[in-house]
């Protein structure tokens, strides 16, 4: 019996060995990377690299790509015009940026990345006609590492450095060209940045009229200084949305008329690098009124394990004030010296969003009463728009240009403002971006006056 057993055993082992599974002989088409060409004319096409020369105007009507390792640069005074109607992805061209993108506008000669009819669109916005503003004319700038190819097993993408640059009128559903960042059909932002080891620098620039989120950073080192954000998100969307892996500072930004939040930080996405951002000396006005979902923020939001410091921000007439949800990383959060103003008791009641866990701090300026603690802007009447009759959610056409754009308003503080000298200055910016100079950042340290404009002329220069 034993030998029989052995024979069987031998038989079975022999069989198991004789089973043969030939390895797969596979051809899986690799990602195709186009060979990049230098800029030779004012029309940009396909894969490009190189420099757009000062004062010139350039055009693109189809998606353009900058390969990993390449650089696309705009000298001062360049206009880059997206040609499209935003109705299909083919006619809403995007800049697919796997390399480095540099736009060095100056105060005297700012750069523009916009559409051909931008002047008309601004005129319409001034006339409270926003339907074309939110067309989503082009596909935005999508900054992600390039595809994995032979010789580049771990692409990292490149830096983005934008100075004195107008970014306008992007959005519209994603097509096949931008699958790194979006699922086909997703709404697109003006800029999507997901190069977690790289720098994202936005300084002294303007963002206007994006269909959804203005800028979304899904990981990266950021320095967002002294910019102006106006009228973004038709029926939802943030000015500046940060996901897991984002480190850096957002300061001296002036933000008016976002559909939802002005600034939102979250560690969603689980990159392993915890989102940690400082937001200081920002002025945020009339944000959050177009979002239809309840339990969303309207100015500054910290959610899901996000951490950072929030000081010296002026939040006036926003649907919700500071919102720190209980799943934010409270142990690594600090906040104080915020200046809150509400023209209605409803707004005043949400200076700290009631579903959050933030509490008033000793340095905060706030009151339960409507119209208390007017920050005394130089040229802006916070009581002009009727928020009693229009508590939100609002459709954009119900909002006057006065509440969603800067126009001729002036948000500097008058000499009698309680905000002057009420800021906290004894903390340091995070300075996650360490590069300085033309291709780096100039960080303005915390200022003593609350908000984006300092009485000594520093801060936001617009």
């Amino acid at each position, binding site marked *: 019996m034993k030998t029989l057993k052995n024979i*069987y055993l031998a038989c*079975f082992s022999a*069989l*198991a060995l*004789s*089973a043969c*599974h030939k390895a*797969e*002989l*596979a*051809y*899986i*088409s*690799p*990602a*195709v*990377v186009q060979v990049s060409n230098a800029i030779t004319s004012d029309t940009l096409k396909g894969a490009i690299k190189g420099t757009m020369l000062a004062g010139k105007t350039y055009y693109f009507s189809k998606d353009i790509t900058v390969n990993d390792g390449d650089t696309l640069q705009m000298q001062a005074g360049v206009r880059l015009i997206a040609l499209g109607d935003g109705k*299909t992805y083919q006619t809403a061209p995007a800049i697919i940026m796997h390399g480095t993108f540099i736009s060095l506008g100056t105060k005297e000669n700012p750069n523009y990345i916009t559409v051909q009819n931008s002047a008309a669109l601004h005129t319409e916005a001034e006339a409270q006609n926003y339907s074309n503003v*939110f067309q989503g004319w082009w596909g935005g700038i999508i900054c*992600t590492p390039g*595809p994995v190819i032979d010789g580049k097993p771990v692409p990292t993408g490149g830096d983005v450095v934008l100075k004195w640059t107008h970014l306008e009128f992007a959005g519209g*559903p994603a097509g*096949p*060209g931008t*699958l790194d960042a979006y*699922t*086909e*059909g997703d*709404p697109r932002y003006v800029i999507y940045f*997901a190069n977690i080891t790289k720098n994202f620098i936005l300084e002294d620039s303007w963002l206007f009229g994006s269909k959804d989120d203005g800028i979304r950073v*899904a990981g990266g080192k950021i320095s967002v200084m002294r910019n102006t954000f106006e009228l973004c998100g*038709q*029926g*939802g*969307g943030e000015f500046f949305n940060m996901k897991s*892996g984002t480190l850096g500072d957002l300061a001296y930004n002036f933000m008016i008329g976002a559909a939802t939040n002005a600034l939102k930080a979250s*560690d969603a996405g*689980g*990159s392993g690098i*915890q989102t*940690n951002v400082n937001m200081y000396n920002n002025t945020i006005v009339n944000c959050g009124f*177009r*979002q*239809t*979902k*309840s*339990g*969303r923020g309207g100015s500054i939001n910290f959610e*899901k*394990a996000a*951490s950072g410091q929030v000081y010296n921000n002026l939040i006036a007439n926003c649907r919700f004030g500071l919102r720190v949800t209980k*799943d934010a*990383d409270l142990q*690594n959060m600090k906040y104080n010296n915020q200046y809150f103003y509400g023209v209605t008791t409803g707004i005043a009641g949400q200076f700290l969003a*009631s*579903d959050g866990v933030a509490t008033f701090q000793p340095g905060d300026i706030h009151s339960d009463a409507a119209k208390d603690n007017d920050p005394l802007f130089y040229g802006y009447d916070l009581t002009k728009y009727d928020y009693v009759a229009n508590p*939100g*959610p609002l459709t*954009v056409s*119900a909002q006057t240009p006065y509440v969603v754009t800067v126009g001729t308003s002036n948000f500097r503080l008058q000499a009698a403002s309680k905000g002057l000298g009420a800021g906290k200055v004894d903390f340091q910016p995070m300075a996650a971006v360490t590069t300085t100079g033309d291709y780096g950042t100039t960080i303005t340290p915390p200022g003593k006056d609350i908000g984006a404009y300092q009485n000594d002329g520093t801060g936001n220069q617009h």
Partner: protein
Amino acid sequence: MKKLLPLLVLFQLAISSFAFATGGIKGTVIDKNTAEPLVGASVEIKNKTTGYKQTAGVGLDGSFSFKNVPAGKYEIEAKYVSYQKEETDIEVNDGAITNVKLALKSKENALNEVSISGRADHTSDQSATNAQRHSPQILNAVSARTIEVSPDITIANVTQRMSGVSVERSSNGEAQYAIIRGMDQRYIYTLVNGVKIPSPDNKNRYIPLDIFPADIVDRLEVSKSLTANMEGDAIGGAINLVLKDAPEDFTVRANVGTGLAANFIGKGFTQFDHGSSEQASPRADGRTASLADFKNNPFYYSEKKVPLASILGLSIGGRSADKKFGAIVSVSYQNTYRQTNGTFFGTEANPATNEPLVTSVQKRTYNIQQQRTGIVTKFDYRFDKKNKISLDADYINLTQNNFRFSSDTSLELGRVGVSTGRVSQDYRSDRTIQKIYNLNLHGDHKLSDDFSMNWTALYSKATANEPDRADLNLVTGNIKQANGTVVQQPVLFDGENAQTRTFTKNSDEDKTGFLNFTYNPTIFDTKVEFTAGGMYRDKTRHSSYDKYSIRPGLDNTAQQFNGNIDENTFFLFTTQGTPSNALNYDFTERVGAGYGQFKFTAGKLLTIGGLRYEHTYQLWHTQAPETVAGKDGTIKYYDLLPSLNFKYQFNEKQDLRLSYYSAISRPNFYELVPHTSGDPDADYDEEGNPFLKRTTANNFDLRYELFPKALDQLLVGVFYKTIKNPIEYSIEKRLTSYVLTPENFGNAHNYGFELDFTKYFSNFGVRANYTNTNSKITTDKEEGYRDDQGRVTHRTVQQTRSLQGQSKNIANFSLLYREAKSALNAQLSFVYTGARLNTVSPYLDNDIWQKGFTTLDFSTEKRLFKGLYGYVKATNLLNTPYELEIRRPYPKDGVDVELQEVGKNTAVRRDLYRQYYIIGLRYKL
């Protein structure tokens, strides 16, 4: 317990009546050739002089008895379908018991000898047992008769009563896919009459079993080992639906029934208007869409007050006078309505502690109408003793209308206390039409005394069309007022996504040919059977997918929804669908196979061995852009798959089987194409993986079988599988997010034992089986924690777990009662399915498990008049919930919400289906 009481009383009564039985005549009725008992045969005694008559039925153990028979000479006659009646004379003496044995000869005529399995009434239990006993591979079988008297109306539900089989359910609580010994549908193929047919389901190669009405099959077989003549891609096993054959005599069977779900008692069924639904996406029609393409009809609802099911079945068959031509046509129609009510929790892992974090509570109600139509026909022609051809032509259609309403309350957003928070509501109307066409031409030819061949030419096509899955996405909130009351806010549309309209359509077409030769020489006085053959299949799948997103009208993005959608305006955001989604693909797979097999019996040892060669060629093109790796691909490989089966027959009644086979499992097309997104209920985006390898396995089985008498049996087995490159869904980290993607996972092992027991005592029977399965696989997990600086981060750790869908313990227990004379059948069935892994979490110890559960079903059938029977089926008597949980205590700082208890496992889902009742009439001629 209340529900059980009447049943217990019924059994109590039956037992007591049995206890008083005494008799003058006892005996058995068997098949003359096979000596198998003929359960259900009728026996009549007649005294010619007194005219005294009495009839009895043959019980489950093959016996019959007559009691209180006056002394005298009797003529005793036994009759059974498809058998010649048998008569004999006996004498009964006072106080004594006369024993008699009647052997009936099958009517089957000699023309039939080509056929391997004979032409007896296949639908009977003993034919199933025979199939089981005589099969070369390890097999469990269920007969049509068992199915008929079981509580089940679909094939999927039947499978769960078989040893080692558990089922995966769809959202209506109905079984959909079988899991054999812990191996899920990926590892199991489904055959119809021994050949594979394609699946209408885009995600699976093999057809979902709920598409088949139970009454179209003659026999259901589950093979747990393979022989070389079977296709090699069944690591878990194979399920074969043997459809009905033309009967020898003209036969009519009809079945009319109706049913009602307990959920509809006192309330109606919500149905949506699918009349004007598009049949294809505008893009598939070659158009850029406009808003007018998306009618509001899917959001028009009406109520069906009493949603009664219709269950109709008709089967007519017979043979021509010369018995050469046979035909059978079975038509089945089932229209059922069901409702499911569920509570679902959104969960995450706390990034700082890795503890489960419950973020939202969702209430879901499904109203599901399923219409199953099956037309199964079989024609055969026997030219002579040696040549026979048959043609199967089948059409199966499952149309499903699924209305789901869900209301999701955030436990974080907008929450300021009990019952407050943001609420997202989703009205979803979804109509799916799945069809299978199958044409199978088969020939058997005996070329000489020891040489025969058979061939099969098969064309089949499966299609699935989900023309317009329409979601209406609404937002509201429950806000606490200054005075402390909670007030619901107006219902608005999700500004970025008010409606989602999704279109999926796919078809899968198979052209297959089989050719087999059998040679039966006698070598060294031993009859040896050599079989050799081959097959070739050309399979093509086309898939198209489009999604459109609709926003509130731009004139007012903050407009309210008051229940009448016609009062709202919308704006079509995506006019082009999703043309570059890789789910728009064409996939071709060509499999060529050849095998050689031998079979001989030396002494008491039956040996079957063989080697199979399978060559696989795959080719796909997707419409993904060229920047996506795997846009196109070809894969080629071959496998040599040996198998060896021994059956050692100690004696007539017991044997021992030992088997080895090598098998593979090919990735699904859906998994290979580099698509993104997918299931709208999924928490993570799905991603295809063109680099997936096939799974290979070595499988060992040892089984002891005992057939003490009649239908009684005891099967005890152990099994062991080593599986290389098993494919499991795992959550993979991408640069900034996670995706759910199929991956190969090194090596896994799956082992366990099985016990299957059947015992009949005259009118009673007990069927029980138990399977213990263990499997192991090790994968990477993330664990969230705070580092030394107090920052939140996570690390990768390894975790060993079981395969998805594998329950450690599965048990079935059925109690049968059968009174042959009055033809009363009753069956009470318990199924226990042990806890099993439902979803693998990317986080350590956060996997979602389905709790172990027991279901109880009851069915009974009684002859009312001649061939007319009445039946009642009641399923899910215990109202067993479908429950998912994370096996970690609900944290102390978790939100206080229903079903969650601090310190107990964290609840994830709880669905309730309640009972389902069916009542009907069956007619047999």
